């Protein structure tokens, strides 16, 4: 198992050697979805707060970059930083509203807030382009590198996604991350021990929003387009499925979930027209046989197998 991490890292670096640009693009999509799902996992898995409005932050960041670099006339780096700041501020405000409740109340408020942003994207035509969205976006050229080719964009995505994932991993292992998981399991106790439960959850909420914002920036550069359908409830539900199917509350789970969903969506849909049904069937199978998610489930299988063979 010690070899796992370096092998995985080398495999990630070798992806662009795949001759088909289509699959390299799929890999980029997986990385973006993995960042998106990992950020939601902070809330769902570690804080125990199930959000059904996480597409909001991906959408805000994507719209902000699209608007700022086209109509706003800002450079790519400045636009990305402003977009992250706007997304973080949005999450800060939404967090105050959503964290008035926990459980189902939290879920409903996040859903409602996400729908409000979807409505704005759809109806405020002068700002968002309405149904047409915002087009005409070009990819950045960091240090003069051209990112138009799938391979180059993949490396760009990896260079952003890897540190983001590392930051999330560090967060959940930090003292604050331990407090987050404590408040998930015993909020009353944590409070009596001197932890400010609300603030701990709010910081996590904001960080999760910022993480989704990073995914949103990558997303909009990948597609070079943003439209209101990105803010759709189905996108929030899909990323939640990634987290739950992969394994909420584990670092690797959401990445596995993201890969599963993106591969099913892209690759399988090329062969089977009713791929949504297949996606549903796969989720049912995961829930039945690995209710803890693919990551922990496969881990369990691996260990019982290696135990029975030895």
């Amino acid at each position, binding site marked *: 198992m010690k070899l796992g991490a370096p092998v995985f890292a080398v495999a990630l670096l070798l992806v662009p050697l795949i001759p088909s640009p289509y699959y390299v693009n799929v890999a980029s999509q997986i990385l973006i979805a993995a960042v998106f799902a990992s950020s939601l996992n902070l809330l769902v898995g570690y804080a125990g707060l199930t959000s059904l409005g996480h597409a909001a932050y991906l959408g805000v960041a994507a719209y902000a970059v699209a608007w700022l670099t086209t109509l706003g006339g800002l450079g790519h780096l400045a636009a990305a930083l402003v977009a992250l700041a706007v997304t973080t501020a949005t999450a800060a405000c939404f967090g105050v509203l959503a964290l008035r409740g926990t459980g189902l109340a939290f879920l409903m408020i996040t859903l409602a807030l996400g729908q409000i942003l979807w409505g704005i994207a759809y109806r405020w035509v002068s700002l968002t382009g309405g149904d047409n969205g915002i087009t005409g976006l070009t990819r950045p050229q960091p240090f003069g590198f051209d990112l138009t080719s799938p391979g180059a964009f993949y490396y760009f995505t990896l260079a952003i996604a890897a540190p983001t994932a590392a930051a999330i991993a560090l967060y959940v292992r930090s*003292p604050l991350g*331990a*407090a987050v998981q404590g408040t998930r399991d015993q909020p*009353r106790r*944590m409070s009596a021990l*001197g*932890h*400010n439960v609300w603030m701990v959850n709010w910081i996590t909420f904001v960080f999760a929003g910022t993480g989704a914002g990073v995914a949103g920036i990558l997303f909009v550069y990948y597609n070079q387009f943003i439209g209101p359908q990105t803010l759709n409830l189905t996108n929030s539900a899909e990323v939640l499925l990634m987290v739950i199917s992969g394994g909420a509350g584990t670092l690797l789970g959401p990445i596995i979930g993201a890969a599963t969903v993106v591969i099913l969506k892209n690759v399988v849909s090329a062969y089977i027209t009713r791929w949504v049904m297949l996606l549903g069937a796969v989720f049912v199978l995961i829930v039945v046989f690995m209710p803890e998610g693919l990551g922990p489930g496969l881990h369990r299988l691996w260990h019982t197998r290696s135990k029975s063979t030895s």
Partner: protein
Amino acid sequence: MAHALEINELRKSFGGLPAINGVSLAVAEGERRLLLGPNGAGKTTLFNLITGELRPDGGAIRVFGRDVARGRPDRCAHLGVGRTYQIITLFPRSTLAQNVVLALLGVSPRRWDPLTALSAHPSLWKRARAVLGRVGLAASAGKPVMETAYGEQRRLEIAMALAQAPRLLLLDEPFAGLSREERRDMQAVLGAIPREVTVLMIEHDMDVALSFAERITVLHYGQVIMEGTRGEIVANPRVREIYLGE
């Protein structure tokens, strides 16, 4: 003498039913006080009011001279109030050491640190093991809570409170459900609490509780019906009637 805890005319009702009905009491610093009373007398409610888990309907609570009646539980912890729960409230999947580390973090500014790994703070873990040693759990430090015996979990409850070096310790039935030997262990643990720590304890087991506490307050239907020394309480006919069932 300065008071660790002062409660004045405290009231709290649940749906019109008074649980605490004008309670006043004062506990001196360093005192060991026993809170006695039949089930439903309002003892745990009183604890929840002191720590801010519940808001009083009226009255005042002062902890070391500070008004905490409108306070929050986390602020109360920072004032030096530690508590244990009657119903064990631990982190079952975490190890004993991890439980104590969460307690240590609760009163440390480090609890806000998102940038360093928790495992990279050896001093925290060392302190956690030392506290576990004080309650005789050093050998189980690495065990998950759910794999430990009930008596060990009771002692872990105490360890988490002690880890925070409280000045006022609220113990909610620390002997509940313990066997004879476990009771002896618990008595030793409580006996080793530093003298300067004020302890307010709820306990039904008269033998162990009366040997621990200097003064006793008897609650009945949310009211203080008597306060005095062990001898005074045991001799009081009204206490015998409602509590000892004679």
